[in-house]
């Protein structure tokens, strides 16, 4: 299983979304969410949204392994 995290405004869209999923890439997770969570999937498709796997920024086609932690990151606003 892959655990998934949503930060910032993505969290608001992901209130009822699953936090674990079976998928082989982050792009596939987004694809899977399109059916039951279309608003969230649309947000994840925004070009500014980054994805990390095990706390490293990666591309959307990064292969996932069982136990990977995938996070979806809207533009950061700290400081």
């Amino acid at each position, binding site marked *: 299983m892959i655990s998934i*995290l949503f*930060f*910032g*405004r993505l*969290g*608001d869209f992901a209130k009822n979304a699953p936090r674990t999923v079976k998928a082989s890439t982050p792009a596939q997770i987004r694809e899977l969410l399109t059916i039951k969570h279309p608003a969230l999937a649309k947000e994840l498709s925004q070009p*500014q949204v980054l994805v*990390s796997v095990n*706390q490293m*920024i990666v591309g959307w086609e990064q292969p996932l392994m069982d136990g990977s932690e995938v*996070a979806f*990151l*809207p*533009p*950061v*606003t*700290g*400081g």
Partner: protein
Amino acid sequence: MDSIRIQTHDFNLAEEYQFLRELSPAVGAVVTFTGLVRDFELDSSIDSLSLQHYPGMTEILLQEIVDQANLRWNLIATTVIHRVGELLPRDQIVFVGVASQHRADAFQAAQFLMDFLKIKATFWKQVSQDGEHRWVENKESDTDAATRWDIKND
């Protein structure tokens, strides 16, 4: 002698400065930056601010930024503190302190650290205004500020 801390509680600038100042008799310059919660956001007064972050990843990203600063400038020590959780107007949010022999290094590094913290570190701000919560949008000016350091912004 770098210190990176993410915490809900407040920080004490005097203590942070004293630590940097006393580290070595070679310290000739200490620059501190403190970011405070302003009472306005988009021309409307705010009630409070809530700061979320990605525990673990934020520390990794901040360490990368501090490492970059140490490669670029001759620094004796660097401290980065960022608060998370609920904050009120006038509260301290973020502290960057840099000690170096010469002032140019400390000034440049402190500015660099803030510029990259702003666009790289995984923090998200939500403001509460008139009982409504709203996620803060990122600012183009912050992306622009970072580009001047000539680092590939991947």
